[in-house]
């Protein structure tokens, strides 16, 4: 029995390394069910992220080595690659990764200074700039492509046989006309191993395992994942009184980026709220916005927009969630002081 550490890891580079390690199960599961395209995306995104980071640091005449070995750029690259459609062409991956690192991070001064989540900024930029590629190039886990198909998709020649919209998107488009029982006859559900959605369930489980390990290692706190997942669960359960029109609760939790985001995206400490209470509110806000945009908005998955919106609200959340300082009657609320 290994003792749970008393403190978070004592080194920034170690933190980044541990997050990367925690992502490995998810990456493996993704590769199994969505094909080798995941790995192509990862490689391209990581390389682009490192090159962009180095270029920006050089432009600012900063030391390259400490920032490159702390792997923060690699982590950004990995996160954006995992968020992109698995059959995304190379230019999309490179553009997203470069935008994340340069616009999302270095424009604001580099590590620790960015107000918004770099990966989600890159994702949202791509979603606006290349909406078709971002919504139709998702792999259907029932038709996992082989190496060559994936490679040609990476080069920009995706085949409609293996790609399509995400399950969440299906609920908004095709399944809208169907009843709940009809929708559940889709092979995605009937062939599922665990009774949820084929493929997605394993990926979600893998991310969950990595995330729980991070909590155990005190790299992240429970507030963010619990806040997001509970909110999604409660809201979608509340609105699922009519199963024929509502997207099922577990689809909300498993099909989209829910679990991945709860443990790996929202937990970005730089752009989120900073106190435990603040993190909880931040995650609840993301949950509400995600549900709103998923069900009523135009875009299939809403985590990116919800995260960006809450990133902008984070400073205000910080102002109103300060803990009570010992020796004071009440906590200091609200903004103050000159800046």
């Amino acid at each position, binding site marked *: 029995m290994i003792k749970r550490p008393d403190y978070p890891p004592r080194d920034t580079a170690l933190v980044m390394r541990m997050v990367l390690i925690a992502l490995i199960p998810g990456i493996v599961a993704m590769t199994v069910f969505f094909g080798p395209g995941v790995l192509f995306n990862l490689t391209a995104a990581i390389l682009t992220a490192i090159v962009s980071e180095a270029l920006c640091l050089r432009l600012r005449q900063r*030391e390259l080595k400490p920032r490159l070995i702390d792997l923060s750029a690699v982590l950004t690259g990995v996160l954006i690659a995992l968020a992109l459609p698995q059959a995304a062409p190379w230019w999309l991956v490179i553009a997203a990764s470069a935008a994340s690192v340069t616009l999302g991070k270095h424009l604001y*001064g580099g590590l620790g200074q960015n107000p918004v989540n770099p990966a989600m900024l890159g994702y949202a930029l791509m979603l606006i700039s290349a909406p078709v590629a971002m919504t139709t190039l998702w792999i259907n886990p029932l038709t996992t492509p082989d190496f060559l198909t994936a490679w040609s998709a990476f080069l920009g020649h995706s085949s409609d046989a293996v790609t399509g919209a995400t399950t969440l998107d299906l609920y908004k488009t095709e399944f809208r006309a169907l009843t709940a029982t009809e929708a559940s006859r889709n092979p995605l559900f009937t062939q599922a191993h665990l009774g949820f959605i084929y493929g997605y369930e394993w990926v979600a489980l893998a991310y969950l395992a990595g995330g729980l390990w991070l909590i155990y290692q005190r790299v992240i706190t429970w507030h963010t994942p619990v806040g997001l997942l509970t909110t999604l669960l409660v809201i979608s359960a509340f609105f699922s009184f009519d199963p024929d029109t509502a997207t099922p609760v577990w689809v909300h939790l498993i099909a989209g980026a829910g679990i991945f985001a709860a443990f790996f995206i929202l937990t970005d400490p730089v752009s989120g709220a900073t106190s435990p209470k603040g993190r909880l509110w931040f995650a609840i806000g993301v949950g509400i916005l995600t549900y709103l945009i998923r069900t009523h908005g135009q875009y299939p998955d809403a985590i990116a927009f919800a995260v960006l919106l809450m990133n902008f609200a984070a400073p205000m959340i910080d102002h109103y969630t300060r803990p009570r300082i010992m020796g004071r009657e009440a906590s200091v609320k609200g903004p103050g002081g*000159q800046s």
Partner: protein
Amino acid sequence: MTEALLTVGAGVLGLSFIGLLGGALLQYASKAFKVDGNPLVDSIDALLPQTQCGQCGHPGCKPYAEAIANGEAINRCPPGGQETVDRLANLLGVESLPLDADETTADQDLVAVIIEEECIGCTKCIQACPVDAIIGAAKLMHTVIVDDCTGCDLCVDPCPVDCIDMVPRPKAPDYWMPQPPNVISSDRFGQIGMQHG
């Protein structure tokens, strides 16, 4: 033709009506919400260093505060330094200006010292001091209460024997300030420690 005239007339009438109505409302408001004095002056005065030196062209800090409230430039206070200009800009929500002063006079905390052997006891400096920081009587040697001196140097010119010097304000013997920690390279403008001290 008549129709057009009618339209124009209606428009003119309508607009005049709105104008009249609005004018009446504003007339009423200007009476109902009449403000006596300007509380803003006190907020501005609180930011000024209270040296009462008159370098801004006003006889004291309060008058300058009043002038700022009436729209005078906020950068005329050399004893306050750039810091005061920035704070005023912040209070008033306007762009900060560079301090309007020579490099040499800005940001130096000075006090007046009377060279006591040379003092002839003319009391001219006592009359000039805006903050009653000089004590002494006619024909007797004067001295400056260092803690009360604001360093305005208004006493220097009136002295007929030129026995008043401006020297850096003496610090308490046990005064000290921690060294600022090393800063990893940064493009930030304002750094604590560089700003004041």
